[in-house]
């Protein structure tokens, strides 16, 4: 079943087209929505909540039309905005209780759920203090808590790791993973870093300039983008060492391309389905095979091996694949 579906969704502002015929189909689980600044991530979220009308196309959330059934969608969805949204002279408890009641929870349930949710996001004694004195990490937790307090079926998290230090970022990412794994709530989470989202997402959707760049499950993503970079020297028998390596690898059935200087990129082939206990194990097995092959080929040719490193493509490279211009 789809949680979010869009069909040539378009949003035009007077000067920019924020979303350009975007068609995606997102299932349950954690989905990362990745894009550079201005890619249209927040615009998509606003349309999904029924807060902004689309210029064209349709959006469906939990089986309901976002243009006409916004109220019903918002009852079942939680939203964490990218910007600050907390009044400073109110305590986290007071604020989250109020937000729970705004979602229709009776007073006692609102209190119970607030206490539970604040504990789940890791806020303890601080929750009775005015929020003006909170650190960025604590504020992000309160923002997450208010999105979860009414037990939604789906949460839309707009850049939840924004402004956090590496440790805070890891904790937030862990929390987001738990929202699906333990709470059973589907998540759409945005970021401009593919690297951080691919760790916790089941699927990743990459958009740029309002257009869909790619939408894939994480397994598919890493298959396509994992590669091995090898740098070799020339030798007397092979004055063009790079060329000789490319040919020898091709003879062994490996796809390799020349990089800058003496570097050769070797794509990891697709692991055979059901080859191991899980996609990650299969991936590792394939990597071992490629490593061994490269070592053997280089030794056979008598080339010097300067370095060999495993690579996972980051967002900038994904953008380069699709577009000339990179803004991130």
């Amino acid at each position, binding site marked *: 079943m789809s949680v979010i579906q869009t069909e040539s969704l378009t949003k035009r502002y007077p000067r920019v087209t924020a979303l350009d015929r975007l068609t995606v189909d997102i299932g349950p689980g954690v989905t990362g929505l990745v894009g550079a600044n201005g890619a249209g991530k927040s615009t998509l979220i606003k349309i999904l909540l029924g807060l902004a009308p689309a210029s064209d196309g349709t959006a469906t959330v939990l089986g309901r039309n976002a243009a006409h059934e916004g109220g019903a969608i918002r009852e079942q969805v939680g939203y964490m905005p990218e910007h600050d949204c907390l009044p400073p002279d109110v305590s986290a408890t007071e604020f989250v209780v109020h*937000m729970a009641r*705004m979602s*229709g929870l009776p007073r006692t349930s609102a209190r119970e759920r607030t206490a539970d949710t604040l504990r789940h996001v890791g806020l303890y004694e601080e929750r009775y203090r005015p929020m003006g004195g909170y650190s960025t990490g604590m504020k992000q937790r309160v923002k997450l808590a208010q999105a979860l307090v009414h037990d939604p079926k789906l949460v839309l998290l707009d850049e939840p790791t924004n402004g956090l230090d590496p440790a805070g970022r890891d904790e937030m990412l862990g929390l987001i993973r738990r929202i699906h794994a333990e709470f059973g709530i589907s998540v759409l989470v945005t970021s401009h870093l593919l690297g951080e989202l691919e760790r916790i997402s089941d699927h990743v959707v990459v958009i740029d300039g309002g257009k869909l760049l790619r939408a894939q499950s994480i397994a598919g993503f890493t298959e396509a983008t994992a590669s091995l970079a090898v740098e070799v020297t020339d030798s007397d028998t092979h004055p063009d060492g790079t060329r000789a390596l490319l040919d020898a690898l091709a003879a062994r059935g490996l796809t390799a391309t020349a990089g800058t200087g003496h570097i050769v990129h070797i794509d990891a082939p697709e692991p055979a389905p059901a080859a191991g206990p899980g996609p990650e194990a299969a991936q590792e097995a394939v990597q071992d095979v490629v490593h061994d092959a490269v070592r053997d080929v280089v030794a056979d040719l008598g080339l010097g091996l300067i370095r060999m490193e495993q690579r996972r493509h980051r967002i900038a490279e994904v953008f380069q694949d699709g577009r000339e211009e990179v803004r991130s």
Partner: protein
Amino acid sequence: MTAPPAPDARIHDIGYRRYEGERLGAMYARCSLFVHSLRGAYGLGRSARSKMLPIGLFVIMCAPAVVMVAVVMTTGRDELPIEYTAYGVFMQPIFGLYLALAAPQMVSLDLRYKTIPLYFSRPIERGDYVIAKFASLTASLFLFVGIPLLISYVGSLLAKLDFADQTTAFARGLVATAVFAVLHAAIGLLIASMTPRRGFGVAAIISVLTIPYFAVISLMVVADEQGSPDAVGWIGLFSPGSLLEGFQAKFLGGELEFPGDQMLTNAAGAAYVVVIAAIIALCYFLLTRRYRKAG
């Protein structure tokens, strides 16, 4: 020495509990926002510092009522020194200050701290937000004037003033207070919603309440001295304070303190009602338009 329990261990101790209970509809959400805002207008649920001003002003607002009751009880006068219908106008400076604080408290903070998108990410619609805030400010203003009136009323009964007279006058006072509250809430809320800066809101509201009022009074004095007493009543249409003063005098049996002391003509009285209603409707319309885009 024992190590304190790691917070992480505690996180994992509580399993996630689903919420299977009822989800009350938009009406309940509106009421929640109404109550929350009303409490906020008196600083309840906010820091001690936020309570000081509204509660302080409220105490000052009640003081004349308490003094009046004490005077009536000790001197045995047979009526209250300030009429119920005139109490709000009499305490206009304190009332104006309270409005200038409460209205920005109610809407500017939501704009300034960008809490608005959170409200609109809930089932309520934009119009619901306006209705709830409007009702809430009206109620807080009504209480601000109405409670001193209640103190006066209870006091006057204890002092054995005439029950029927006092009850009629008190009822009229409540009607005047209701109109007073709705008109001021409409104006104050509209001004406050224009700016996320609380200071600007406070200054703008005080200006809108006082500048036209003093201009109107000056013009009335001039008109009266120039021998056109009829014009005095019509000039009163141009400030919220004089509108309400004329309204309560004409329709609720209060006294009119305009220069010349002449009662409004029927035509002018009708114009007062129309202008009051028109200002409320216009402010409300502009407010809903303002919130169509906000957030």
